[in-house]
């Protein structure tokens, strides 16, 4: 009996292998044919799109059904490269080809990268009919698609879109800070940064820290007053304070210096570390004494960053550094300064090592 089963299994598996292999061959052939079609498409349509950069073309070729995906990709690429009148002409071209209607039929998530292109295109076209569809995509589990939908929504209508997207910015941990910041930068930090900070005020510390990191990524100067308020409320929350210190050092607003200096004395060493790094970016010669004090810190990394920040202070000279190194009681901490002096000499530039995040 068992023998019978074994043979049946063997036969069926072998058949399956052969079917799979034929499928592979078919895929390969289809890809070769597809590549030829793509070349034909590019040679026909790329000149049309390039012409759009300067003048609107008089006659348009017919867009075939199988070329829609290729066209979407090419068109979005062009759209992402230029602004101004060229951008507007490309939009007119797309509308003439009914791209807004075509793209709307491709937005279902199971379409994969086609849906992604379609959503991006709808944003560029500022297609208001797509509003509902895009708003629904915001909560889709695919992070790339949902973020693309967010981008499209704020492109179509900045104010309305932002009010829809804002709650998701706080909760969707899977939206990477990098990509989210690109979306927000397109709107401009002056609009989005205060809104982000406003959200942060009413959220848990992890979410608030994430929002502050986003503000840092878009260099949201206009959010600084609100962020100051936030750390006044949570002066000892490590995640919030560190994120805020990083933001301050990115924004270089001297009004934040007293707060940063204050945190160099905090009991948590990670906060002291971030404060030391922030002083390196925006400290003045007055901070020499604070950084010198940090050179005797109990944590090695705080000492290291303090030495680095010391060497990077404005108007800091080699000679002064050497004097400071002499003044340090502990030999190994003097070595830290020596290291940065040498580093600056050696590489003929201001020593800036990659920061410890």
């Amino acid at each position, binding site marked *: 009996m068992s023998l019978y089963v074994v043979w049946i299994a063997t036969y069926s598996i072998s058949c399956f292998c052969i079917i799979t292999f034929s499928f*592979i061959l078919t895929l390969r052939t289809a890809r070769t044919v597809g590549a030829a079609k793509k070349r034909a498409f590019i040679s026909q349509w790329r000149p049309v799109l390039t012409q759009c950069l300067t003048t609107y073309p008089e006659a348009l070729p017919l867009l075939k059904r199988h070329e829609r995906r290729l066209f979407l990709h090419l068109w979005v690429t062009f759209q992402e490269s230029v602004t101004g009148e060229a951008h507007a002409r490309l939009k007119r071209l797309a509308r003439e080809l009914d791209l807004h209607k075509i793209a709307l039929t491709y937005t279902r998530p199971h379409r994969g990268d086609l849906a992604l292109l379609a959503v*991006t295109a709808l944003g560029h076209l500022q297609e208001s009919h797509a509003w509902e569809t895009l708003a629904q995509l915001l909560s889709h589990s695919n992070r790339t698609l949902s973020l693309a939908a967010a981008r499209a929504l704020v492109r179509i209508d900045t104010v309305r879109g932002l009010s829809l997207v804002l709650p998701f910015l706080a909760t969707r941990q899977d939206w990477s800070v990098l990509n989210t910041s690109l979306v927000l930068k397109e709107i401009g930090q002056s609009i989005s940064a205060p809104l982000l900070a406003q959200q942060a005020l009413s959220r848990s510390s992890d979410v608030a820290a994430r929002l502050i990191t986003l503000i840092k990524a878009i260099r949201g100067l206009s959010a600084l007053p609100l962020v100051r308020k936030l750390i006044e409320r949570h002066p000892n929350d490590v995640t919030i304070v560190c994120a805020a210190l990083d933001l301050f050092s990115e924004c270089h607003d001297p009004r934040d210096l007293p707060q940063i200096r204050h945190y160099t004395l905090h009991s948590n060493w990670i906060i002291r570390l971030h404060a030391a790094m922030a002083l390196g970016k925006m400290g003045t010669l007055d901070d020499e004494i604070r950084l010198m004090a940090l050179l005797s810190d109990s944590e090695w990394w705080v000492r290291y960053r303090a030495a680095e920040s010391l060497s990077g202070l404005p108007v800091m000279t080699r000679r002064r550094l050497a004097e400071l190194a002499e003044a340090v009681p502990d030999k190994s901490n003097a070595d830290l300064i020596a290291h940065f002096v040498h580093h600056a000499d050696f590489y003929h530039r201001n020593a800036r090592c990659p920061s410890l995040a």
Partner: protein
Amino acid sequence: MIGPIVLSAFEYLFLLYVVAGNLVYLAINLVAYLALVRSRSHRSIDALPKRLSGLEPPISILAPAYNEEATIATAVRSLLQLSYTGYEVIVVNDGSSDRTLNVLIEEFELTPIPDVYHPSLPTKPIKAVYGSPRYPALRIVDKENGGKADALNAGINLSRCPLFCCVDADSILDRDGLLRIVQPFLDDPRTVACGGTIRIANGCDFRGGFVATIGLPKNWLALIQTVEYLRAFLFGRMGWSPLNAMLIISGAFGLFHRETVIQAGGYRVQTIGEDMELVVRLHRHLLSKRLPYRIAYVPDPICWTEAPENLDALRLQRIRWQRGLCESLAGNRQLLFQHHGGAVAWLAFPFMAIWEWLGPLFDFAGYTFIFICALFGFVSFHVAVAFAALGLALGVFLSVSALLLEELTFHAYPKMRHVTLQFAIAIAENFGYRQLTNWWRLVGFVQWFRGTQASWGSRARLEAWKAQ
């Protein structure tokens, strides 16, 4: 009377082992397929205008080197040309007995520099640190010999970036490999480690230190390994990573969160497969601390490595791999069925234990059993053939499904000839090659079991270095 009953019980057990194993493989295959399709769906937008910023975390590349005078200069040169905004390269010369250090000093005009570092991990003494005025991102550490793990630990001590990337001095990275492998860290802040796909460099053309055209090797041994690598990476890794249960990140290319690795104790020095051991231990450490984490995998081909082209080198490599695997699993056996351990403790670890750790033993037992039975007439010739045919079909099936995954996703090998050749190999490798590697795995298993600490003399050490 008892004979036939015992026999059929064994038969069924054997059948169960084979079928269950393949069912699990099939399931992993499906997961891998879904994950790959998902990750591929982001690609066409990635191809749009470059979206880079200063937000990528800085990375320290750690390249341990032991007696690599012939290749080290080229390797470091291409490491210095990767496209990434903030990274440093730390080459650790692990007390080479040849001119490795001198070659580096001449090539990069190195001079000793005073360097401060925090010895978070214990290592053999460091003799000197060198820097190059022309390449500020490059540092060379000269230390006393202590093995690859020790060299990596020294590199970790000297690195100043939140992430470190271990590379083999003799493999070739893709130019944008760092950019791609760092993505999981950007997407998910809980990521502590990420592995990339390793492919076989033999048969590819290189220009200026990077892959120019992809091809298949002429050497048949390397050719077979291309299919093996596809199997191992496309679903071995891709299948486990969505479950956060990946147990191996190749030492040839992996990106790690520095602090987490230090807290877990760094690379273990007394082990052979230090790369796998670290990942298994990271799982165990983070699970026991109940910390949320992700160990991710990037399926794009990223790193190209030279495969052994002769049986001797291959034998050493496989024995090492098996010993490393046994040590890694046995040393972290607490992970098995760990409370709140999730897929890694309840699926991946048991699976690895039964089919990879003890697998060679079972395979050997199965073959011997059938052979003896056939010899003494307990089993008809017919039965033996049937089982052999089933084994063959399953073997081919696994390879073909890997080929399908490759075709659906990367189709890196460009020509139709490559596809047919790889299909032919998927069949041919079952006659001889598979048995041979299984035998070596058994040897590795036995060596591990008997605890033979191979004489750690200079030759063995060199082999150990080379056989990575």
